[in-house]
């Protein structure tokens, strides 16, 4: 009986053989199983560059396990065969697939990472976002049970910043669209989203539309009218009903949203790209959600351009990357009402995304912001760099030069692990 049982479990395990990948402290809480040990891979969603390699957007897999013979090397690359301003990606709740998209088109590429997490496989495209919702430029892919909530940045009508969210089933079936609110203080812009299921709260932030983000940065910042077309709000939604409840004033284009994962906490934090401020979103004593400016990132007058944040799993610390000065900053969040910068280091001539392992000991940084916003010439470094963090110093451990490797512009990252794959032992 015992043997039969183990056989059945083994069969089940082999058949299910699930993947195990996540960007560990910023995933949807609905994603099963986090990587709490050493991650094996970093998946890098990479913008194609004309004349570089095949010129297409691609999902690049880098081996990041120090015990591996291919540590710090590219072990897989899956090309989309097109160039569409590759930007962000997200796991489905069952961790079998990565959804990834570009900001200049409405195609979403779905990669299977269940079969072999070392070699993602492009299995499907979802291309009806524009037709079904009128939105353009899918940005955030956030797993809900059996579904994917996609936050867009723009719209197909005028390519401005009025946009919304689209809901899909994990099978890629369009289910619904929700426009960002334009009443009661809403400005209609969108950027990131993140949920707090225990409070039934969905929180969204706001950036800008295609007309701005596809424009060369040097031109854009000289255009005073265009520079008005950035979001200045966050929205608190009823998650269950997908209905806006309250618009919060958060001036300066609030970007990534991170809820504290500490069960005792009840707040989220974001950074404003143009304002260069950290903002705290929390409930007041009466249960009302509020947003509060809790401190500057660098010298806001110099527009360091905070572009990504990564929160510690206990909510006690926050990494912030600023694109213009290439700095990676660490803030002590012991008191989230008063973050305190305790460390900074120039980690590149331009830096963008930052991801940390669950234990906080490893930090990964990429270089590209947007194809037309990246720096030029020698400053246009394109890389992923892996660092060790001992609480005092970031020590670089490896680098993959995406220019030299003919890959493109390195942008969003997700972590992967083969250790969480289903394995029955002793059967």
């Amino acid at each position, binding site marked *: 009986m015992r043997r039969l049982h183990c056989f059945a479990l*083994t069969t089940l395990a082999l058949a299910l053989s699930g993947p195990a990948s996540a960007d560990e402290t910023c995933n949807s809480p609905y994603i099963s199983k986090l990587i709490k040990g050493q991650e094996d891979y970093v998946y890098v969603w990479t913008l194609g560059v004309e004349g570089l390699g095949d010129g297409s957007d691609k999902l690049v897999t880098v081996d990041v396990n120090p015990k591996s013979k291919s540590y710090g090397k590219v072990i897989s690359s899956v090309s989309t065969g097109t160039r569409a301003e590759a930007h962000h990606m997200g796991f489905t709740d069952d961790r079998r697939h990565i959804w990834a998209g570009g900001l200049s088109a409405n195609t979403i590429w779905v990669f299977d990472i269940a079969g072999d997490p070392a070699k993602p496989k492009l299995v499907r495209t979802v291309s009806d976002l524009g037709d079904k919702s009128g939105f353009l430029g899918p940005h955030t892919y956030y797993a809900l049970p*059996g579904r994917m909530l996609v936050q867009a940045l723009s719209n197909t009508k005028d390519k401005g910043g009025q946009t919304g969210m689209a809901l899909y089933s994990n099978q890629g079936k369009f289910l619904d669209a929700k426009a960002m609110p334009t009443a009661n203080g809403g400005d209609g812009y969108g950027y990131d989203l993140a949920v707090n299921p225990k*409070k039934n709260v969905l929180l969204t932030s706001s950036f800008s539309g295609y007309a701005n983000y596809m424009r060369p940065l040097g031109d854009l910042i000289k255009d005073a009218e265009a520079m008005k077309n950035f979001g200045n709000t966050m929205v608190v939604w009823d998650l269950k009903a997908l209905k806006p409840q309250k618009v919060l004033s958060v001036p300066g284009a609030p970007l990534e949203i991170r809820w504290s994962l500490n069960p005792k906490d009840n707040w989220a934090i974001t950074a404003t790209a143009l304002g260069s401020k950290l903002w705290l979103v929390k409930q007041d004593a009466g249960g009302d959600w509020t947003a509060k400016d809790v401190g500057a990132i660098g010298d806001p007058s110099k527009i360091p351009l905070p572009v990504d944040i990564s929160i510690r799993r206990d909510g006690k610390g926050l990494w912030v990357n600023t694109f213009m000065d290439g700095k990676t900053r660490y803030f002590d969040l012991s008191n989230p009402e008063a973050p305190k910068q305790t460390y900074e280091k120039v980690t590149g001539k331009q830096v963008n995304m930052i991801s940390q392992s669950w234990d906080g000991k490893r930090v990964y940084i990429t270089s590209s912001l947007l194809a037309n916003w990246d720096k030029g010439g020698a400053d246009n470094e394109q890389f992923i760099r892996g660092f060790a963090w001992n609480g005092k110093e970031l020590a670089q451990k490896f680098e993959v030069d995406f220019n030299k490797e003919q890959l493109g512009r390195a942008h969003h990252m997700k972590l992967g692990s083969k250790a969480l794959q289903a394995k029955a032992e002793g059967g």
Partner: protein
Amino acid sequence: MKRLALAAALAAAPAFAHHVELLPPLDFVPPAPGSYVLHHIMPAPEGRVLGVDGRAAPLSRYTHGGITLLGFIYTTCSDPDGCPLAYRVFDALKEAIASRHELHGKVRFVTLSFDPARDTPEVMKSYAGSRALDKGNGLRWTFLTTRSARELMPLVEGFGQDVRVTRNGRELSHVLKVFLIDAGGDVREIYSSNFLHPQVVLNDIETLLAEER
């Protein structure tokens, strides 16, 4: 304060009196029934299942023609946020439905094992105990298993039910999911532990019933 008040209100309600105090508190007021949309997420998958009497039948026999709440379990599960939580929620809902005559005959529960080797029909019958008996309280609770992992697979994968075998090979690691299925056999809501609370489920059931009217 709001959380305490809500928990107290739910515990005081006759429908949940016996079980809600055992559940994690609901820290928000869910939207009212009918005030929101439950999307047609996917058709419930089809497959062969075994009843506690050992007879085989298509799963669709239990997922069409009425509102179904379906959850995967395995009888030796001990994770307090897994199968036991689902059981407590189902028990609380059963009480709630029993006290609401307008819900009688409209809802059924299905508990399906994902451990076919250990959870035989006999084991499932023992596990179900008196729950499987319709005592005229308006709700049928069916306990099912499958003949083999091969027959189970299309169901587990079709529902997107994450499950893995732990390294010691003795336990099934899974993320709790419960599926609300409409009379047409479409999955309309998927609950994880964060959203699996009887009040939320009851509101969703009422939302589906409002669609039928």
